[in-house]
């Protein structure tokens, strides 16, 4: 080693080290730049270019294939011929062009001169006026002269310019005429090839040219890159940043490049088109254009993160997808994301956050189904859910139940396990569950059930049935159940498949009634439900005594012997006392004091006390009216209004490690078997989880979880919410009533529901669709009809029942239909004024169309196949009648009413030739006038009512 004095190291060696590490440093810096530059989404966009190019090429090929080559040849030949022809007029054309150039030069000069004169005039005008203000009158005089001078020049100049422009136009016209043949040929060529040329142009944008590479090169790609993050800033939906709400930023389209472009449906994600691009979302013409709504507003997830696949909190639908994603994208559960993406099957839940006031949300079938279930099973009764408070208790009143059911034992066994009697029962099971099936808990539960039944029986008021069961023809009963409309709400044991398929659940599944109810009660109930229970939604079908007995005898013919023979264990007074002392009396007192308190009560009082306490404990009063539990009692379950935003950490998973640690994982498990959380957790009897088991199937669970996941806490700005107009609000209020009485079970109301109607082979014989009902019928007719049902279609067997509407409900329902159709409340009594010859024409049309063939009533004695037109005047709105006659199928797609005036392509056409100037509108109006003229001013006699 060579060392100079004063040197510890050889400088050459030091220099070499320096060189090496400097190069390393440089390489590391370059590495850093590339590490920053290379992003997964860039690769996605580069691949997207290839896909786009390929798609465009395919389209070009397709278009080229469709071009008529003969025509193309001809057009090209035309161009050549035209060129030749124009060649002959060259001298003339040249001269004209020269002339045009000279004129254009003059125009240019004149424009400049005009500009100078104009601005001078304006300046001198100001100077002149300013001099006047300053009272320099001498100057003002001079200035005025100069101003006027310039103004005059300006006006002259403008005039000159107009002259020049006119002569330019004339020359242009001449030139145009000379080259007209070529212009036409070129136009034809463009027409032929235009869309192909546009596509070719579009394809150049997908080419990876050197300029493209430069625009996207590291360091310079800040200038004008083509590969870049694409984002939507959604002003009307905000993200909660905890200290501030900020507009949502969605960058999903950075990778989901073609999500808004139709034509990429066949691609893999992320290159796929949104499956509902034109109807529901993303597309410009859809209900939710991506520009206004973004992506994560509905899907959830973190829209502003594009680092990699995991950063926006993608969530797979199921285990299989999770596995695929793990392999493909190294997917993992997102950390610390309050609202990860909703698995695809739950996306509809998010509709709720903006569509708060709507009873049924269009295009959200699954959500509507889920909400129906939440309503049917009465989740809202125990759990507060905002927007559901108007609903009434889902279970029947129990104040007179002893006169309904056959025995006390039946009540006990029913409380113990309702599904054992009725597998379709909506009454959930509280007992014999995973957390209370240990023998000591069972004994206590049995004591509770005994006490509750005792309480219910003792607190009952007596009820005297209005009719005695006299026996009947059960085959006839079955027939009636199937035809008059019972299946619009109930499924019934033993019915033909066609009718049980209707599957409505507004009323209970009717099974084993012979082992359950008192026959006299059943007949009385069928005759007049509101006599037994004034709060019931069960309507009267105006049954005759025979009909009621027939139906009753059919229903009673089904027995559940096994259930009826069950003996419930007797009340064990020791266990009863133990529960009272340990769980109730000693809550705030010592055991001694509790015992003393108990000893003061008689045996009976103790049982009643435990019964009352147990009803309180299990919240029976939430669903049933029970004497002693009137008034505003607390809801027993936790509030669910913001369940969809509850942090996963706040869900108790207990020992259930197999349940996925997600919101939907917990909710799904909870709905399937709610008590499982207590398994393996040592708990005291009084602390056991009390959520009952509804024995829901997987599909029901999924729909209900969807509803719960949609109950998020997000604050949506007013502008982002679906806001209802006054009419729509009225409509929604009305539909709440329609929903309560399950009108949807029979009628399809504006496209929703109608299961019974659709069960009919010929829907003309089923309950009619109610499409824009408020526009169809007059308000006061509907109001009266719902109270006093009268026959409209005498040939139809299914009955419109008489519902026990409250007055306020009736008003809401009727005004809802009216508001939803934007109609005035009262339709003026039509004044029929005929134009000359119109009435004769109307009569001719009536004859030619043979209206009375179907609308026979009042015209001939044939069997009617359509309503009596004499009552149309009071029932229908005139405007609707015209609209109906013009196109009946647009209201009732199944109707047998012919569309006489429809030309088959949605346009009107004169049905009767040579009448009323062949104006279809006037012809229809004439028929409407005719029907209104012969119409009665009275209403038909209502059906006799059971009173």
């Amino acid at each position, binding site marked *: 080693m060579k060392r100079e004095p004063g040197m510890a190291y050889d400088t050459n060696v030091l220099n070499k080290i320096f060189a090496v*590490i400097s190069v390393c440093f440089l390489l590391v810096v370059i590495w850093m730049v590339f590490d920053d530059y290379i992003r997964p989404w860039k690769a996605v966009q580069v691949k997207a270019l290839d896909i786009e190019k390929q798609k465009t090429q395919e389209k070009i090929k397709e278009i080229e294939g469709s071009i008529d080559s003969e025509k193309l040849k001809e057009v090209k030949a035309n161009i050549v011929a035209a060129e030749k022809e124009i060649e002959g007029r060259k001298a003339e054309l040249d001269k004209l062009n020269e002339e045009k150039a000279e004129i254009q030069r003059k125009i240019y000069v004149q424009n400049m001169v005009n500009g100078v004169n104009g601005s001078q005039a304006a300046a001198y005008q100001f100077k002149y006026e300013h001099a006047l203000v300053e009272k320099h009158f001498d100057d003002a005089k001079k200035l005025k002269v100069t101003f006027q001078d310039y103004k005059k020049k300006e006006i002259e100049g403008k005039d000159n310019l107009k002259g020049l422009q006119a002569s330019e136009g004339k020359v242009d016209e001449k030139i145009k005429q000379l080259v007209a043949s070529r212009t036409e040929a070129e136009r034809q060529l463009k027409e032929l090839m235009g869309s192909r040329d546009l596509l070719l142009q579009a394809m150049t944008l997908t080419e990876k040219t050197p300029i493209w590479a430069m625009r996207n090169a590291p360091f310079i790609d800040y200038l004008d890159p083509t590969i870049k993050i694409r984002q939507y800033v959604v002003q009307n939906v905000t993200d909660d940043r905890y200290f501030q709400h900020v507009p949502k930023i969605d960058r999903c389209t950075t990778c989901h490049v073609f999500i808004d472009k139709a034509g990429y449906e066949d691609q893999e994600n992320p290159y796929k088109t949104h499956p509902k691009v034109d109807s529901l979302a993303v597309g410009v013409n859809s209900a939710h254009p991506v520009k206004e709504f973004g992506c994560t507003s509905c899907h959830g997830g973190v829209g502003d993160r594009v680092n990699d696949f995991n950063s926006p909190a993608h969530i797979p639908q199921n285990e299989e997808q999770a596995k695929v994603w793990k392999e493909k994208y190294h997917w993992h559960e997102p950390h610390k994301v309050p609202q990860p993406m909703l698995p695809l099957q739950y996306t509809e839940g998010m509709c709720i956050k903006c569509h708060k006031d709507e009873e049924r949300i269009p295009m959200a079938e699954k959500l509507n189904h889920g909400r129906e279930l939440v309503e049917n099973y009465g989740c809202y009764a125990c759990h507060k859910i905002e927007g559901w408070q108007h609903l009434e208790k889902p279970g029947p009143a129990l104040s007179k139940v002893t006169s309904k059911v056959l025995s006390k034992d039946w009540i006990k066994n029913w409380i113990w396990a309702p599904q054992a009697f009725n597998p379709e029962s909506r009454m959930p099971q509280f007992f014999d569950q995973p957390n209370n099936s240990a023998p000591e808990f069972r004994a206590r539960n049995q004591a509770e059930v005994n006490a509750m039944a005792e309480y219910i029986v003792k607190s009952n008021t007596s009820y005297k049935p209005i009719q005695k069961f006299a026996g009947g023809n059960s085959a006839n009963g079955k027939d009636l159940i199937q035809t008059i409309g019972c299946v619009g709400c109930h499924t019934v044991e033993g019915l033909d498949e066609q009718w049980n398929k209707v599957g409505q659940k507004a009323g209970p599944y009717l099974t084993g009634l012979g082992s359950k109810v008192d026959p006299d009660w059943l007949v009385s109930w069928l005759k007049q439900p509101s006599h037994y229970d004034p709060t019931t939604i069960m309507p009267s079908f105006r049954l005759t005594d025979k009909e009621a007995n027939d139906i009753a005898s059919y229903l009673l013919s089904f027995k559940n012997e096994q259930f009826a023979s069950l003996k419930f264990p007797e009340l064990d007074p020791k266990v009863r006392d133990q529960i009272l002392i340990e769980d109730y009396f000693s809550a705030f007192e010592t055991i001694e004091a509790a015992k003393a308190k108990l000893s003061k009560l008689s045996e009976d009082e103790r049982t009643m006390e435990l019964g009352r306490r147990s009803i309180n404990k299990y919240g029976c009063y939430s669903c049933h009216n029970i004497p002693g539990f009137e008034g505003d009692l607390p809801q027993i379950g936790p509030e669910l209004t913001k369940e969809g935003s509850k942090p996963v950490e706040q869900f108790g998973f207990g020992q259930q490690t197999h349940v996925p640690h997600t919101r939907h994982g917990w909710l799904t498990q909870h709905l399937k078997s709610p008590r499982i959380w207590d398994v393996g957790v040592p708990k005291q009897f009084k602390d056991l989880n009390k959520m009952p088991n509804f024995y829901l199937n997987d599909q029901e669970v999924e729909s209900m979880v969807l509803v719960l996941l949609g109950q998020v806490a997000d604050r949506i700005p007013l502008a982002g919410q679906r806001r209802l107009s006054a009419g729509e609000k009225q409509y929604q209020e009305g539909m709440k009533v329609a929903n309560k009485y399950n009108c949807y079970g029979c009628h399809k109301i504006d496209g929703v529901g109608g299961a019974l109607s659709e069960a009919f082979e010929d829907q003309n014989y089923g309950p009619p669709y109610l499409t824009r009902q408020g526009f169809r019928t007059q308000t006061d007719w509907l109001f009266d009809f719902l109270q006093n049902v009268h026959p409209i279609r005498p040939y139809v067997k299914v009955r419109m029942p008489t519902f026990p509407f409250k007055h306020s409900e009736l008003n809401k329902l009727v005004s809802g239909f009216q508001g939803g159709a934007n109609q005035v409340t009262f339709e003026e009594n039509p004044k029929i004024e005929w134009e000359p010859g119109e009435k004769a024409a109307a009569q001719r049309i009536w004859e030619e169309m043979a209206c009375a063939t179907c609308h026979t009533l009042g015209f001939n004695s044939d069997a009617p196949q359509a309503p009596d037109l004499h009552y149309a005047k009071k029932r229908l709105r005139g405007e609707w009648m015209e609209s109906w006659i013009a196109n009946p199928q647009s209201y009732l797609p199944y109707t047998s009413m012919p569309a006489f005036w429809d030309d088959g392509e949605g346009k009107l056409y004169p049905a009767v030739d040579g009448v009323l100037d062949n104006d279809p509108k006037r012809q229809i109006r004439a028929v409407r006038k005719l029907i209104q003229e012969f119409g009665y001013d009275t209403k038909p006699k209502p059906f006799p009512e059971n009173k």
Partner: protein
Amino acid sequence: MIKEAINYLSSPLFSFTAFIILFALAMKRIDIVGTKKFGWGLLIFVLVVFVWMVSDPVFFTIISLPDNVPIIILNGLVFWSTWYALYRGHQNDLRIEAGEGPIEGTPENREKVWAWPNLVYTELFAGILCTIFLIVWAIFLKAPLEEPANPTWAPNPAKAPWYFLGLQEMLVYFDPWMAGVVLPGLILVGLIAIPFIDVNPKGNGYYTFKERKFAITGFLFGWLALWVFLIQVGTFLRGPNWTFYGPFEYWDAHKVVAENNINLSEIIWIKMLNMGLPKNIFVREIFGLIATFGYMFGTIPLITKKWGQSYLERMGAIRYYIMLALILGMMSLPIKMYLRWFFDLKYILAMPEFELNL
């Protein structure tokens, strides 16, 4: 089985005690510690154990958090630099004993060289290499950018930056005012005061252990046991809710630990004397006051008499008493830790009325 034992034994009481014992042994048997054989042996042992521990998924999850990687690096560096200093010191001590003088004092090592390029150039190398290292580190371990702060959803565990985790661990044993203000203040003041207190000229310019035994032991105790070790505890052994978790224990946020700590006044008045707490806070806290003042002032003559006489003479009264105050302050931390572990003692002196809890 072994892992469960380690989980159990790594609770602060056992691991801290073991650490102190090992530390005391190391200081005592510098003739073993300060050899290359020992250094290699220890390195191999530590590496083998570390590799074995890393093979455990739970432990790996904890140490591979981007935040925790610096601690692993810190451990390596601390291990190396401590051992190296002790090794060099031991070498010199042997030479000095043999009358050869320290190795730094040999004529060839006393030769002077130019600052440029010998020093400045090599410093530049170090700077570049360090930058390269930091860039590569940043490429592989991205800075963890987390969610926007959510006041209703705090991270659990909420941890300080890694270099403050020892300080955070102190909060377990002391009132925030003590652990967060007084003790860190003492550390800063003490570190600043060292050059003024330490007048021992030996060891200037060369490594030695024997000639500065007290200074080195005292400093290393504070640095290794009370700072680095507590950082390890705070980083690897404290999970959600700042509860203790063994190195192989899953951080289950629901872990429940029964910790019912009571004050000295409660121990004496209620538990021992079986009477209520006196109303007057000075009477109530009389034992705490006696203990505190006894510790801070009463121990001084005892210590001086037993060990301090020669230091007092050598350093002068002011330096000596300042040093003693600092050492007593430092020692209050392990003392309080043991009191907590053995007696569930919350505060020796509990005067929340004056925001004074010791």
